[in-house]
């Protein structure tokens, strides 16, 4: 282990953790289960003991390790910012190298990614056709927005066309690979990332706009591992905010909703984008924006979306808490900027009689498009 290497730096993080437990204060999985094993402190203990081979790999420990959503609240509340989430990803990498099984539902997702290079369906033809094949700006659709929430793609293309931003969409778009990285499948991630980088180069892409925060973070922060070429990466909410600042977004319609903005983990804590979505919402006539105390911005409560498939009950309870707290303060809508959060919270929202909407949907209504 060379001093200065990634492994050394991560082991330094591990040895620096004093198990003080400050990380528990806002950990969503611990908040729901009240079981130390599902807390960052518990996971740090497992990381240490598994890496040193003091305890064997067991299913129940793997559940604790793989139920971490990588939300990074623990890193935010740690007094010395120990990189707990990164250590958990590193542990998953090491477990994967040793052939430890990952939860079955994750395995199925990984198999689909390996076979198709993406999850679910490809971007719809009608969206791809709207693009300009010569454009250097890529609208990176992402797995969820290409399939379950393709209306978000439709809206984005309409807004971009309205304000005169040209773009293209790849008909054969690959997944960004972010999910593979989080699961600790580093080599698989690199392969996919490499493919995407080659495609970007072939197509002369200089700027990428994503709808999904995980795609934005992965392309912006993790692709440095496979390419030295710098591409301008933006989440769509950043683009909207720039347009607002430049006076190109003029909201004609009043949207009389009382809403809370749910900060997606990968846009908020991971990329520190908190102000842009709020600025947009505050500019919409009739819209009242509220904040859930101790659950917004840096302390945003992860909805459980990334772990929904293997840990449905846990993810359900996590999103339930968001709906309950939003209702408590009188909100009738939860606005987010992440297709995964959108889907996951929506499962729960119905019974709480609260709506979940992407900021794109609200902007489209306010623009009357």
């Amino acid at each position, binding site marked *: 282990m060379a001093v200065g290497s990634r492994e050394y730096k991560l082991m330094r993080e591990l040895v620096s*953790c*004093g198990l003080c437990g400050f990380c528990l204060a806002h950990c969503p999985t611990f908040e729901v289960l009240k079981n130390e094993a599902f807390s960052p402190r518990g996971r740090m203990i497992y990381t240490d003991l598994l890496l040193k081979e003091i305890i064997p790999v067991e299913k129940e420990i793997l559940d604790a390790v793989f139920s971490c959503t990588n939300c990074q609240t623990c890193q935010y509340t740690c007094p*010395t910012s120990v990189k707990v989430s990164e250590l958990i990803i590193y542990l998953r990498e090491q477990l994967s190298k040793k052939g430890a099984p990952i939860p079955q539902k994750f395995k199925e997702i990984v198999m689909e990614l390996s076979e198709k290079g993406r999850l679910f369906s490809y971007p719809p033809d009608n969206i791809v056709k709207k693009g300009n094949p010569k454009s250097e700006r890529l609208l990176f659709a992402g797995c969820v927005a290409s399939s379950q929430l393709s209306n978000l793609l439709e809206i984005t293309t309409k807004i971009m066309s309205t304000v005169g931003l040209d773009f293209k969409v790849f008909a054969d778009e690959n997944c960004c690979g972010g999910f593979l990285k989080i699961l600790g499948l580093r080599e698989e991630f690199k392969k996919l990332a490499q493919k995407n980088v080659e495609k970007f180069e072939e197509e002369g892409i200089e700027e990428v706009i994503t709808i999904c925060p995980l795609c934005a973070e992965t392309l912006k922060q993790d692709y440095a591992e496979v390419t030295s070429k710098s591409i301008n990466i933006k989440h769509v909410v950043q683009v909207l905010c720039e347009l607002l600042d430049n006076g190109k977004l003029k909201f004609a319609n009043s949207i009389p909703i009382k809403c809370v903005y749910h900060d997606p983990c990968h846009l908020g804590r991971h990329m520190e984008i908190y102000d842009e979505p709020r600025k947009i919402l505050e500019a919409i006539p009739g819209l009242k924006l509220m904040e859930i105390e101790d659950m917004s911005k840096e302390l945003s409560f992860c909805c459980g979306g990334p772990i929904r498939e293997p840990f449905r009950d846990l993810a359900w309870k996590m999103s339930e808490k968001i709906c309950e707290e939003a209702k408590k303060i009188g909100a009738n809508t939860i606005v987010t900027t992440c297709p995964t959060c959108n889907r996951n919270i929506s499962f729960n929202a119905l019974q709480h009689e609260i709506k979940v909407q992407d900021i794109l949907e609200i902007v489209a209504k306010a623009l009357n498009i």
Partner: protein
Amino acid sequence: MSKLIPVESILKIVGEENVISSKAHLISYALDFRLRRIITMIKKFKLEDFLPELVVMPENTEQVSEIMKIAYENEIPVIPRGAGTSLSGQLIPVKGGIILDFRKMNRILELNLRARYTVLEPGVYYKKLNKILTENGFWFPPDPGSAELCTIGGMVANNASGLRACKYGTTKDYVLGLEVVLPDGKIIKTGSKAQKTSSGLNLTDLFVGSEGCLGIITKIILRIVPKPPHEITGVASFKQFETALEAAYKVLESGLTPASMEFLDMLTVSAMNVYLPKELKLPFAKGTLLIRTDGTLQQAEEEMKQILKICEEAGGQTKIFPSKDAEELWNVRAALFQLAERALQTPESPKMSSDRIMDIAVPLDKIPEFLSKTRQIAKSYGFTFGSSGHIGDGNVHMRFMFNMDENGIKKADECEKKIINLALELGGTITAEHGIGLWKSSILEMEHGNAIEVMRKIKKALDPKGILNPGKMALDFIPDVAFLERWL
């Protein structure tokens, strides 16, 4: 390990959702920062010897009582647990048994502002309580470093205090009464809701700070006080550490009453500065006083002005921090324990810290002598340490780090014992606020001598079968792992 735990009976009492029995998950309840390092570096100590057998999360006193009846009948060890932030190994299961996790007994049952008390369950978070109290113009002032997470039950069981102790005292000064479940399941009440009492033996004070060894606290009647509306934070930096202490004495002797007055040496300031934003970084000085005054805005300002004037006359450079920045400054100060781990640990040779001397207190006037001699002792063993502390109450926090090899352990053991002897010769105590738990149990006798026998008789009278938090506070037996020399 205890006799077989009748899990089915416990499940009937609390329900499946309140029981953790997976051995794999129980591992996460076994370790604190010190034991984690020991079992990963010293082969003779095995994780298996520190595992609980069951975690139970009761929801009310009756459930606790029923569980205790089962535990008593079957001689099963029981360890009550709050947020798991104790610093002396109070929660480590050394004989297996049941951990009673109180996070689900977290209700504030009564809040009476006119009578100035609140009744609450032990799992109420300190932060939550103070948020509610503050909204009503009141507070519970003791503020331990673990304030972000700790529970009131844990604070009571450890008689926790913190940075405001010099003006506001410790947890015991606020506990008016308790509901306690005894080892056989009997429920007793101590104290009252009145602000004072001289009725009978003071059982409330007996249970406060008893670290779960005498009874299980299930309700707390807590005295609350009006919260001063304003706080001002100031800092005074001195060229010499001794000058800083001398200035602090002058402040205390002047009749002024700072809410907090912390001394920090140069190493401590350096460690804090790593985590402070540019505008909050403390001047690099050999001696620093971090001071907080409170009251009405005028009172707080006037008192701070007078304190800083005294410091300036003693040669200090002074500065007042805006209130929005001050909170961050105090938060970093409160996290010194974590900062030290961060600054001093390396993967190639993880070190152990001298936790047995981490929170010694000496009479106020002895702090300079104690620190000066302690430095010489540590230096003679090749150790250097950073020190800080609450000068207003004589509590000194200091740590050195030692290697986990034979030489390092031997030297650390000798050095710690010399420092402890010095503190006791000066009329001090081995622990001002962190408690004895497991890690200081081997040195308790150095302080208390044959008074320990009295403590053991009290333990025996209340817990004849020795099922409550065994192996802690030297009340029944002292586990091998508590003796540094037995690590070899």
